[in-house]
Each structure stands twice: as C-alpha cells, then as structure tokens.
C-alpha cells in the first residue's frame, strides 16, 4: 500500500491512512446520492429494494466506520509525530493500517455480494455472512494497534519530558484513543461473544436485546471517537491558522477528560423504546447523557473566544467587527466555521433525542437521519475535509490546485445539508420512518404529506454529491499535479494561559481511565446481569435480503 505515497515523504503512513479514508468516502458518496434519489420515489434505473438496502449498508459502514476510522488514525499518527517529535513503533503502525485495509476489504466484499444487508448496526437476529463480522473485527484490531502506537509514543515522550504538560493536541488524541478502547470493549463482546459464533452456526440462538445493549455500549462513544479529533482541530489548529490564540489550555484539557468519563455509560438513550430494560436504568443513562452536553458548551465558548482573539488581532473591532476579519477565503477555516454552526444545531437536536420520554416522538424517524448528518455527516466530515486543504501542502509539499473550487466546496456541502437534513428533520416530526426504500405507504394520506420535502432532500443529496466531487477533484488534483512548494510546517496554537506549568492533574490519564471504568460498571453491570439471569430464549437467525 505504501506505493500510494511518495517514497521520500516522511508522512507515508499518514498519507496512506488519509487515502483509504478518502477512497471510502468517495464510494460512500456514490451510494449516498443513489439513496437520496431512490427515497424520493424517482424512477431511476438502480432503484430496487435490494439495491437500496445494500447501498444503505455500504454507505453506513464506509462513511461511519471506515472513512472516520482511517482518517482519525491518520490524524493521530500526524499529531504524535509532529507534537511529540516521534512515532514509537512505526512499523506497527503499518501493520495496523494493513490489517484495517484487509478487514475493510473483506467486509466491503461481503456487503457488495448481497449476503450481508444488515445495515451498519447489524442488529440480530438479522444474520450477515460470517465474513462481514470477521472483516469488521480485523478493522477494529487494526485500530487497536494504532491505539498501541499512540500510547507507546506518548509514554516514550513522557520518559524524557516527565514534568511537562502533554502537548494539547496529543492530550485530545489520547482521550480519543481511550474512548475508542472503552467503546470497542463492548463491540468486541458483542461480535466475538455473540455474533461470530452464531453466524458460524456454533450456537443456534442469540439474544437481540443483549446484543443491542452491547452494540450501544459501543455506539454512543463511537460518536465521540468521531467528534473529538474534530474538536482537536478546532482547539489546536484553527486558532493557529487564523492568527489567534487558544483561549484556555486548561479548560480544553478539562473538556477532554469529561469526554473520557461520560462518553460510554450512556448507551440506553438509543434503546428508550426497547423492551427488557427497566425505565429506571433508562433514566440513569439520561442523566449521564446530559452531563456530556457540558463539555460541548465549554467548547462553544472557548473556540469562539479563540476566534474573536484572532479577529481582533487582525484588526477587527466593535461587537461583531472581528467576525468579518476572519480568513473567509481559507477553505479550511470556512469548513470549520460551517461545521461549528451545524454542530450547534445538531447538538440541540441531540438534547431532544436524549430526552427520555420525548424520544418516542423521533426515534427511528427521518429526524434521526437529519440529526446525524448534521453531527457526524457535517460537523465531523466538513472538519476532516477542510483539514485536507491544510494537510496537503504540509504533507506533500504541493500547493492546492483550484483554491476557488476548494472554497466553494464547504459552502455547497452546507447548502446541500440544509436541504437534506432540514427536510429530514421536518418529515421525521411528521412521522416518516428512516431506512425506508420508499415512503409512500401505498398512497396513504399522512405519507403524501411528506413527499414534497423528501424530493427536496433528494435535491440536497445531489448538491452534497457535487460538493463531494469537488473535494475529490481538489484533493486528487493537488496530490498528483499540485505545484511543488516548500512544505509549510505543521504548527499548533499557542494558548493565552501559561502552559509551562507542571503537568496538571488533567494529564493523569490512568486516574481518569479508572473513574471511567467505574462509571461504566455502575451504568451497565446490573442491567447486563439482569439480562443474563432472567429466563431468556434467544432467537435463530434470519436473512430476509
């Protein structure tokens, strides 16, 4: 795989990770536009239920699991290499990367062959081909190796710089690594303990609620695994490229630590409508869920304050004058600004989803697909896409080709998402379910009322697709044909508050991991014990696809 990166680049590993991520994104985007058109009941050639659900499975896996994981691995390697000045065990990094590629290939083939149309949540008793689960396992093991390299690099640095605070971007990446390890423990229990033995026929039955519980143990922290690297970019890179300062180094560390603590013990907010889990435990998880709103509120303040500093340093004054002085011609900055705006809206939607009893108004409706395309599909994705415009010159020593197209791309994405996500939110409130090939329901009256907005969402899908193509063209064009320049340095923001102080308590990861594990035990031990000990029957597998 290293052939895709120029042999002389010191960033071969990072570039390879980004390349796989972007490839998965491209494939996922093709799936996406087909889906958006099919949902609007347009009479398009590829529209059949079989293709639709296969495509949704591929899109979910490629976007939510492959694109994100590989991109985050690339960012992690880069941040460790640049901020710590080293990558311990780089060859292990390659093994992890290659294993991830092999796993991705196996799972993708399983999906495209039509044997595994179980969607990216693979709820049993829907049963995929064993290779679907095995490929996903290899991808996760590859990412664990990445975790090992990240931790080893940090410890090696720590041995030399014992009393210094961890570089902030690395602090955030270590939080990401820890959240990922805590999350995938649940996934490993589900896939290795339940799904693989069952799909191979070694055991006949599986308990769907136990499997869902383990899945959402993984599924919610998964969203913070996506989000935190975007936050790291917002906190530690954006103030630098806008010419400002990071408003508060200490609070940023507090934010990352709170995410370590509260990302995982919250999964029941995805299972409010499930049987088999008592309402008391659902209420407990509601409390922990709302606690993680707090660090995002802090982030909103710190990041905007950092931008204000930048705007004022650039000569902006008055209450809002600084806004106009920000670098609105820089595609990375524009991407992140729009990403933040989307996240503000998506975050409020999230507070509604998590609202215990109100959840039944939106659960599994199109509202949910509107919600996560704002959060992971825009806040995270736009930050990552934008970061490519910043990364490319630095990693490859080539100037961006077509900077105007690069600048148009985030705006187009945002516009497409207003149409797609906006209409999905509204039709969801009207009752349109998500994950449906057609939502006409035999011409039912209620269903008629959401058809117009569904067509609008299809137009949004086309705009998003055009934006994806622009992104792929600029990135591919720059990589292949960009003008050679002296690669600028990868640099991070300087905080306003003094960071020469000794390593703060927020850097004591062992302590925070301990508390996080304790919270997971408190949130899950008893409900899982109850599930395991009550009289259960389990279900054989089905393949209705």
């Amino acid at each position, binding site marked *: 795989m290293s052939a895709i990166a120029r042999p002389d680049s010191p960033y071969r590993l990072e570039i390879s990770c980004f390349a796989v991520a972007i490839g998965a994104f491209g494939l996922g985007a093709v799936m996406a536009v087909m889906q958006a058109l099919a949902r609007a009941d347009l009479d398009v050639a590829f529209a059949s239920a079989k293709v639709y*659900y296969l495509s949704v499975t591929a899109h979910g896996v490629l976007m939510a699991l492959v694109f994100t994981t590989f991109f985050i691995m690339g960012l992690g390697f880069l941040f460790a290499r640049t901020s710590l000045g080293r990558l311990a065990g780089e060859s292990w990094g390659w093994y992890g990367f290659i294993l991830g590629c092999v796993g991705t290939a196996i799972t993708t083939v399983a999906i495209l062959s039509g044997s595994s149309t179980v969607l990216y949540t693979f709820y049993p008793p829907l049963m995929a081909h064993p290779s679907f689960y095995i490929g996903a396992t290899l991808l996760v093991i590859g990412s664990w190796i990445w975790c090992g390299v990240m931790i080893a690099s940090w410890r090696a640095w720590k041995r030399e710089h014992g009393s210094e605070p961890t570089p902030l971007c690395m602090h955030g990446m270590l939080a990401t690594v820890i959240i990922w390890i805590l999350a995938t423990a649940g996934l490993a229990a589900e896939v290795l303990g339940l799904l693989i033995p069952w799909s191979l026929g070694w055991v006949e039955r599986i308990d769907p609620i136990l499997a869902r519980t383990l899945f959402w143990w993984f599924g919610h922290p998964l969203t913070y695994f996506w989000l935190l690297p975007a936050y790291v970019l917002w906190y530690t890179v954006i103030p630098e490229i806008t010419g400002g300062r990071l408003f508060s180094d200490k609070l940023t560390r507090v934010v990352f630590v709170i995410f370590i603590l509260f990302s995982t013990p919250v999964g029941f907010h995805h299972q409010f409508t499930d049987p088999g889990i008592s309402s008391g435990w659902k209420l407990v998880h509601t409390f922990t869920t709302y606690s993680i709103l707090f660090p995002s509120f802090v982030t909103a303040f710190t990041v905007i304050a950092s931008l204000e500093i930048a705007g004022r340093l650039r000569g902006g004054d008055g209450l809002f004058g600084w806004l106009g002085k920000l670098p609105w011609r820089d595609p990375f900055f524009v991407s992140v600004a729009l990403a933040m705006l989307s996240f503000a809206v998506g975050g409020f939607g999230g507070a509604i989803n998590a609202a215990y009893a109100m959840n039944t108004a939106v659960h599994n409706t199109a509202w949910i697909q509107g919600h996560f395309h704002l959060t992971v599909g825009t806040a995270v994705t736009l930050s990552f896409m934008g970061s490519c415009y910043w990364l490319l010159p630095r990693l490859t020593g080539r100037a961006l080709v077509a900077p105007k197209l690069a600048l148009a791309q985030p705006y187009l994405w945002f516009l497409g998402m207003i149409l797609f996500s906006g209409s999905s939110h509204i039709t969801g409130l009207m009752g349109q379910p998500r994950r449906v090939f057609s939502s006409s329901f035999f011409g039912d009256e209620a269903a008629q009322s959401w058809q117009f907005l569904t067509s609008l969402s299809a137009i949004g899908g086309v705009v998003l697709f055009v934006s994806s193509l622009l992104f792929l063209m600029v990135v591919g064009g720059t990589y292949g044909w960009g003008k050679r320049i002296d690669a600028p340095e990868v640099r991070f923001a300087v905080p306003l508050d003094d960071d020469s102080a000794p390593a703060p308590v927020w850097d004591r990861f062992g302590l925070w991991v301990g508390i996080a594990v304790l919270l997971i035990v408190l949130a899950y031990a008893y409900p899982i014990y109850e599930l395991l000990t009550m009289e259960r029957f389990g279900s054989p597998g089905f393949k209705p696809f």
Partner: protein
Amino acid sequence: MKIDLYERIWLWIATVMIGSFLAAIVLGATMNAVHPPSHVETIDPTTVRTSSEFSRPRVEINDDGSALVVGVAEMFDFEPFLIRVPSLGPITFRLTSPDVIHGFQIVGTNVNLTVTPGYVIETTVTLPKAGEYLIVCNEYCGLSHHQMTARLIVGEGDGP
C-alpha cells in the same frame, strides 16, 4: 484553576440549562409517570404462533371503552392489520415478533415501540384525537420493510 469571568458566567448558564432539562424530565417521570415503554417480559420466539396469547392476534374492548391489543409483527405484516377501538383510551398494546426486530410506530402520535423477538413489549396510551392513523414499521427488517404497515381507527369513523 483561574477561569475568565465571561467563561464562568457561560458555564453557569450551561449548568442551569442542563439542570433544568433534567429537572423537567425527572418531574415528568415522577409526577406524571411519563416513561418510555420499558416492559420486561420474555417469550420463546419460536412458539409465538402456538402460544395461548399470541396465536390469536386480536383487539379486546372492555365495558369502560378501554382496549387491549394483542399483536404480532412479522415479516412483513402486522396482525391485526386493522385495529379498531371505540374511544381514545386507555389502549394497551402487547406485541411480539416471531422473527426479526420490527418497529411499531403510530404516525402522528408518541407511540413508538421496538417489537423484539424473545420479548413482549407492552405500553398503555391515551390518544389525543379520534380518527384514522397509519402504523409503520420503523426498524429495518428486510427487503419489504417499507411495505410493512397497519391501520388504527379510533372512534366511530368508517375505515376500509
């Protein structure tokens, strides 16, 4: 730890906001018993069709106008397909599935249930207004998932 004054104010606003969300939820849960459906009861999914309760999907109307709906969600139908009840409620739904997971969502209401094989889900609701409702499956269950529907008629209206 020194925190900037404006940021401190903002943190307090955030704390108060989160606190009031939670207070509203806890008050709703304790005072008005507003809970998500959370019934705990198991059943062998392979015997649903022969079990005494679910072998006959049905709507039972009591003298006081309340109703009990005993239903099965199965690839790719709901039984009973037509649910007719005389009054707004209370209506109790007891549902299970002999195959994969299905959703049971009454469009235009807050009724939203995950019908899971191996479990019985039960909830009791009172609907806000009479009329005809579309019921859809909102959990992917296979290639005809989008065609899995049923109907609820509340009150005296004449449906199909």
